[in-house]
């Protein structure tokens, strides 16, 4: 079995969640690497869009910015942010990858501030960017992040980006499109999904050598698990080769 690091495993897990023949709004970094890897393995017909306006590029090199020239490489269309966001609002974009400084049990994300005073936050973060929009519009929200207690919190300091909000029915009650919501959280410890009824985050698979207790120790809220928690399959040789040679040859991500 080949050796690999946590980042490589996370990217492979993220890639595997993406079905072929679907559309995906990505940012830079892990999401982009995951999409590029998925296209090279099982999803050649996965379409990438970037919120700045690129549609269906055939990425050669990982972009540094969501709007840089690299996002446009061999693209089918270069358009506007409103167009991309409205394709999403219209229901044409299946997946999106998002991140944040905090995530709670319902998949709500905070990328605005740490601390509760909006005028004088303890730490000011960049804000929503396009996250709130894509999380409102896309059918399945994916999060890839490191797993620690300061990040997986009982209650986000600021609800920047909607997950299941306060639980079952809350997205619909708020007016968000009916067919949307959090889908997977992929960390350096495990893969999580959401309980179909309670909409609470739940453990699906543990990464090799990770115990349930270790996940619980690193999660700031009580986390359930499906009945048959499995083990995350390790990256295959094919996945690692493509990731290392074609997706991230300069080790921007996997060298971290």
């Amino acid at each position, binding site marked *: 079995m080949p050796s690999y690091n946590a980042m490589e495993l996370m990217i492979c897990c993220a890639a595997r969640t993406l079905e072929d023949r679907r559309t995906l709004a990505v940012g*830079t970094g892990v999401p982009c690497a995951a999409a590029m890897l998925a296209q090279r393995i099982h999803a050649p017909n996965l379409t990438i869009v970037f919120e700045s306006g690129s549609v269906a590029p055939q990425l050669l090199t990982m972009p540094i910015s969501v*709007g840089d020239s690299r996002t*446009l*490489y061999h693209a089918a269309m270069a358009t506007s*942010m409103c167009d991309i966001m409205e394709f999403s609002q219209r229901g044409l974009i299946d997946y999106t990858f998002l991140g944040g400084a905090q995530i709670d049990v319902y998949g709500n994300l905070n990328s*605005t501030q740490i601390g509760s005073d909006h005028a004088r936050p303890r730490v000011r973060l960049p804000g929503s960017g396009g996250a*709130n929009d894509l999380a409102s519009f896309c059918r399945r929200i994916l999060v890839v992040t490191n797993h620690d207690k300061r990040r997986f919190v009982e209650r986000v300091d600021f609800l920047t980006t909607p997950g299941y909000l306060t639980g079952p029915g809350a997205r619909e009650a708020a007016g968000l499109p009916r067919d949307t919501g959090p889908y997977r959280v992929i960390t350096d410890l495990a893969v999580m999904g959401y309980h179909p009824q309670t909409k609470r985050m739940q453990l699906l698979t543990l990464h090799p050598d990770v115990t349930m207790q270790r996940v619980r120790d690193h999660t700031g809220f009580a986390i359930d698990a499906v009945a048959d928690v499995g083990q995350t399959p390790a990256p295959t040789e094919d996945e690692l080769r493509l990731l290392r040679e074609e997706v991230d040859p300069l080790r921007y991500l996997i060298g971290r």
Partner: protein
Amino acid sequence: MIELSRGLGELFSDPSPDAARLAIAEKSRSLTDKLTTVSDAVSRFVRDGDYLAIGGFGLNRIPTAIVHEILRQGRQNLRFAGHTSTHDFQILVAGNGMGNGRLLAAVDVAYIIGLEMRGLSPHGRRVVESGEIALTEWTNYTLALRFKAAAMGIPFLPARSLLGTDTFTRSAARSIECPFTGEKLALVPALYPDVAAIHVHEADRHGNARFRGMSVADLELARAAKRLIITCERLVPEEEMRRDPTRTTIPYFLVDAVCEVPFGSYPGNMPGEYFSDEVHIRAWLEAENTQETYRDWLRRTIYGTRDFADYLQLCGGLPRLQELRRQDLMLDRGR
């Protein structure tokens, strides 16, 4: 139609289309020569207290020279649209907390302080955490949508974004029940900036402009702003624009000033022309670590340069720009 709730955020600009019509009633609709210098454009069209918006996205296709000049000329108390505003915000916020008064007074935030994968701006954080800039929260789409409402000449647009979040609570949006379907919607108020600056590949002297690649929110912004400054990589003759009108996306009657600024998005990326200068940006972020190092940096790069050509020279001149072109063309996969 029932109003359900409203955000607590302050509205920093007037969403009334009648007020905006009044403001542009006497704006020239004529094919006159609008060519000028960056310094003249800023001194004539950017005023203290203005609501300012900058085109592009992140470090991509940004009118850097205009932003430098706003800082250099020491404008005060601007309101600003921070929609994935990375290097432009970074430059502007150097006008706060450095002993030169307060350049930014209020910001509509979708994404500021961060430079995407490059990390956060230390000085930007210091200033924003000090509380000296009033902030109202939005998202990239809803801020673009506010430009779009203004471009359309109406006071608001509906969206299915913001709903259910603290971002809504700290915005100045409202939520309603749709009179046609009963579905809940957010309404975002139009944003008519006093002045905007946009960088493009090509423009003619009257202001007809076109660019390659993503338009981000620039077509909406060009139509929303009361005054508009265009900087371009290359001036082209009017006949060249009229040869293929399908490619023109900003018509001259929206434009107040045209400045030819080759490499004008530097250190940002210009699609098809040159990639971003990541070395320069890293050095910039490094310099922000203390007030002292930052003061030196700004003195050298902005206050100590005569104009943008001087700044380019300081940063390595044509040889460096040719290297960035090589990166942008993705020779050797962009390395």
